[in-house]
């Protein structure tokens, strides 16, 4: 807490240019985030709200050719302190014909080179990542153990292969994989999804990173395995205590693991603050979107009485044609006459309503 946040994202914009529609998909549109050391930040939102792209932008893994990133991602750890997006805007040019963007010219090679230069020693070593689909995210041609071993050799002080193997076994044990010595030589193909995700977590932790990004770690798994993985992550949170950025659309997962929560919608953050304040479900103190999200989760009472599930009305935001005013306005049910004009025409700012709790809504402004 003394020396500022580990990760500080300011004004992050990640746009993808689609040639066929000749328009920008504005996946991430001005995101500010901070993660304090040792804390877990949960990012929650519907699919397509830009959660994963935020994570990929931080890692410099936005590979789609016409992807354009700008902003500032400050990483501050014991070893490193730098802006992960430095000099990137130098390599992008846009061409407009009669005021419309017709094409984006991006010097892909130099962009990529620059990204790789900036990220060297950071990917894996300072920030490591857990992905959504464990079976596809591990190399099917190499054994699980060797992949962990490789990560250890690359990113830690361990230099001898035998020692790295022991470390890998230690981590496999740590993530509660049964008979790690046997599993070490298994290919991802021979493991179940849950096992794979455990191995993935072991691989991410094995490099002892300063920041762990977990991108939908439970989404691709069965419900029972999901809860096991959440338990594991909880356990790791207490024993290893790594700073985590947790991305999920599952509010229960976020609730179980996070200290801070950010709610994303349409590429921007609608609400950001302490987990208990946001996820308490108190209508009066939260963004209409968060409230609607919370209301859509059935509670025990509703399940018992077989009540209808509540859904958020309307469609997920089309990030090509954004509304002029508040992004959530077309689906918002809490618009009052007093603020309607504002909601429709002007985008609200992210305003602090109490200590560390900020909301982007006209209801809390003026």
């Amino acid at each position: 807490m003394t020396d500022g946040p580990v990760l500080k994202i300011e004004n992050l914009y990640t746009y993808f240019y689609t040639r066929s529609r000749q328009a920008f998909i504005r996946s991430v549109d001005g995101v500010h985030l901070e993660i304090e050391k040792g804390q877990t930040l949960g990012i929650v939102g519907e699919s397509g709200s830009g959660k994963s792209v935020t994570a990929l932008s931080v890692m410099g893994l936005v590979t789609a050719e016409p992807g354009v990133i700008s902003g500032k991602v400050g990483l501050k750890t014991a070893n490193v302190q730098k802006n992960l997006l430095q000099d990137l805007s130098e390599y992008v040019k846009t061409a407009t014909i009669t005021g419309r963007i017709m094409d984006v010219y991006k010097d892909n090679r130099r962009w990529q080179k620059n990204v790789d230069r900036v990220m060297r020693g950071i990917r894996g070593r300072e920030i490591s990542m857990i992905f959504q689909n464990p079976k596809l995210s591990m190399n099917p041609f190499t054994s699980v153990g060797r992949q962990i071993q490789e990560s250890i050799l690359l990113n830690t002080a361990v230099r001898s292969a035998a020692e790295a193997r022991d470390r890998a076994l230690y981590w496999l044990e740590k993530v509660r994989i049964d008979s790690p010595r046997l599993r070490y030589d298994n290919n991802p193909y021979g493991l179940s999804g849950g096992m794979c995700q455990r191995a993935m977590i072991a691989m991410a932790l094995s490099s002892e990173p300063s920041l762990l990004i977990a991108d939908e770690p439970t989404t691709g798994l069965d419900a029972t395995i999901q809860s096991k993985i959440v338990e594991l992550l909880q356990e790791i949170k207490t024993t290893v205590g790594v700073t985590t950025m947790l991305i999920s659309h599952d509010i229960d997962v976020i609730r179980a693991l996070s200290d801070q929560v950010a709610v994303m919608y349409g590429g921007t953050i609608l609400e950001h603050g302490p987990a208990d304040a946001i996820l308490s479900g108190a209508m009066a103190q939260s963004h209409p979107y968060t409230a609607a999200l919370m209301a859509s989760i059935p509670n025990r009472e509703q399940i018992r009485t077989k009540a209808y599930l509540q859904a958020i009305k309307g469609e997920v935001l089309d990030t090509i044609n954004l509304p002029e005013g508040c992004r959530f306005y077309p689906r918002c049910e809490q618009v009052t006459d007093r603020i309607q004009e504002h909601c429709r025409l002007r985008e609200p700012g992210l305003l602090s309503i109490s200590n560390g709790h900020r909301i982007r809504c006209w209801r809390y402004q003026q």
Partner: protein
Amino acid sequence: MKLSAVRPITVLVTRELGIAALLLLGVSFVVFVILYLSPGNPFATLVTRIETAADPGAAAAAPATWYGQYFTWLKNLFKGNLGNSIRTGLPVLQEVVRVGINTLYLTIGSLLVTLLIAVPIAVFSARRGMTPTSWSMTVFTYVVSALPVFWLGYIVIYISIHRFGLFPLAFGSSAGPWNWFYFLLPVLVLGISNGTISEVVRYLREEMKRVFAEEYIVTARAKGASVWKHSFKEGFLIPITEIIAAKIPFILGGAVVVEQVFNWPGMGRMAWQAAQDRDYPLIMGITLVAAIIVRMGSLMQRVVHIIVNPRASKE
């Protein structure tokens, strides 16, 4: 792990060997059918000739039924007795093996040339995307692949005669310091214009791009590991072996023309001569040997696939 992994591999390789043997049996049957159906039934004569050659005292009569003829021929085939060439009177097997070495050298050499040209272009354009450089190289591969191989052969011969005073038409006759050049020219010509370069580039490029976009490559990047190392097996090794296996027939076919142009004493030229003379025992032997070479290529590809890909054992 080692033991448990090795056993399925041997089982699979044995299975592939069995399949290859079965396919070669099929090949022999196809060859038989073609000759059996051809006008004048040269096959009956052939079987008679083989039998007579094997045992001069035996009655020179072919088995009457078609399967009788086929099995007699097959039996001799296993003994290595393919009959004698009609034109030269020499045993077919000896003839084919003698020139087969030259063709093998030509085939493997030009395959190497093709890969040496195609692989860098494919890797470059997979890595860099469609820049002007990779685009012009891709167009170049299309032009080169459409070049008629015989015409390119003429150009090369013309240049070597008029520039270097060499006569590659007189194959192997001179023992000058440029002798190695004669051996290189046909290999280069066939390697460049066997018509597969554009396909090889395209296939390898698309495979590499596909693998680069795989999720496990993103993971590898996220942990700071080399993309090349992780994409090598699926993105490079497997496609390359597939290409080699798939293109051997084309290159063998191209060898027929190139051997003709360069007077190269190989199987292709012999096949051409045999077709001219309707020397069917000889061309039958050549077809069988060519099929064996093709199957060896596929066998190599399957074995690499089985060894590299842990999923192969579960398929």
